[in-house]
């Protein structure tokens, strides 16, 4: 009980940190998204290779799971969604990129090709690692090893809830023109194409970053809840066992009393 209580407190503290980080990085990601949408709806020819839509021969699936266990149904929920996705595709079409130890242990004996794995992030977001992951993913796509990449992670909603999300990462879909069609006559400095060269790598990085930080926050939330439940269960069990022990002790005392009393009685 001490143990689970301590873990609950630890993950509560980690959760708070992860949550603050996540909430403060969301505006950047959403603004980035809007700019990209505006930019791509305003320019007609999207020639950047990351927009490239190809016939899908190989699909990449990035699964973000936790490095450690004891976080309730967190990983199970992620894998269930993954199975749902994987069952629709033939096995040799899929290439997996696994982030998190639990995902690696879950999939290493399964008949899918594990293309990349990252099992030592430890719930920390480091820019260099995130950059490395993003660069590798983008390379997979650009080298035509995979023709589509999906991200599977959990979106942090509240402390007690998260949603497993499956999103397309690459190729970047063209954004549909919104209501203001043709209204936006942007001035581009430099040209739209050059801007895309700068903007898209940043955009990819931000996507990966936000997905990781959403996942980490939900993992900690899930662990906190699981440990809280474990603590409560342990308390309940301790109560029951204490009662049982007292009853047994009482029974033993009563028995001894009766024996003594009957012994005295017999001696008379």
């Amino acid at each position, binding site marked *: 009980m001490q143990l689970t209580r301590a873990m609950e407190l630890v993950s509560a503290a980690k959760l708070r940190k992860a949550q603050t980080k996540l909430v*403060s990085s969301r505006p950047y990601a959403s603004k980035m998204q809007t*700019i990209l949408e505006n930019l791509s709806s305003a320019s007609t020819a999207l020639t950047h290779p990351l927009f490239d839509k190809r016939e899908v021969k190989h699909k990449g699936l990035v699964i973000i799971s936790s490095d450690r266990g004891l976080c309730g149904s967190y990983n199970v929920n992620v894998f269930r969604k993954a199975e749902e996705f994987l069952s629709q595709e033939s096995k040799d079409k899929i290439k997996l990129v696994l982030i998190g130890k639990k995902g690696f242990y879950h999939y290493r004996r399964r008949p899918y090709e594990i293309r990349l794995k990252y099992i030592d992030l430890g719930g920390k977001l480091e820019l260099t690692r995130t950059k490395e992951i993003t660069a590798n993913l983008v390379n997979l796509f650009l080298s035509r090893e995979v023709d589509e990449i999906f991200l599977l992670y959990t979106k942090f909603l509240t402390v007690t809830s998260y949603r497993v999300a499956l999103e397309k990462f690459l190729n970047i879909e063209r954004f549909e023109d919104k209501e203001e069609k043709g209204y936006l006559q942007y001035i581009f400095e*430099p040209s739209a194409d050059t801007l895309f060269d700068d903007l898209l790598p940043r955009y990819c990085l931000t996507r990966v970053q936000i997905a990781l930080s959403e996942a980490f926050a939900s993992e900690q939330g899930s662990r906190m809840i699981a440990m809280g439940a474990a603590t409560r269960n342990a308390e309940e069990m301790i109560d029951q066992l204490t009662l049982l022990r007292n009853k047994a002790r009482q029974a033993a005392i009563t028995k001894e009393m009766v024996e003594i009393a009957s012994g005295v009685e017999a001696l008379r």
Partner: protein
Amino acid sequence: MFLLSIVTPEKIFYEEEVSSLVAPGIEGYLGILTDHAPLITALVPGKLTVKNSKGPEVIMAVSGGFLEVLKNKVVVLADAVEFARDIDPERAKKALERARQRLKSKEKDIDIPRVIAALKRAQNRVAICEECIKERTI
């Protein structure tokens, strides 16, 4: 007046109604006033100058990013940004020195474009910092 938001990957750095902004666009410094036409540009390391009705102009060092103007809303997506008064001159100078050393060193495995970018960022911070100090002493 228009709404200026400067966001970095870490947080919303600055969000206020301002009357003018001067930013280091990739094709040169550009000034933005109310009712500016829609614009998207990349930013290079340089100085952000913000004027609002409240007081003296605010100066920030930005290390690159993007700027969008749309309907009197200006968004700066900065890679990193800090107020000129918050820059530590010693640290900035050391970073500049380090970048110069690296560029001079004949090591094979250095990533030249990256070092140059770091050098530019460091130069920018030192320049803005010195400017800020000079103004204070006058």
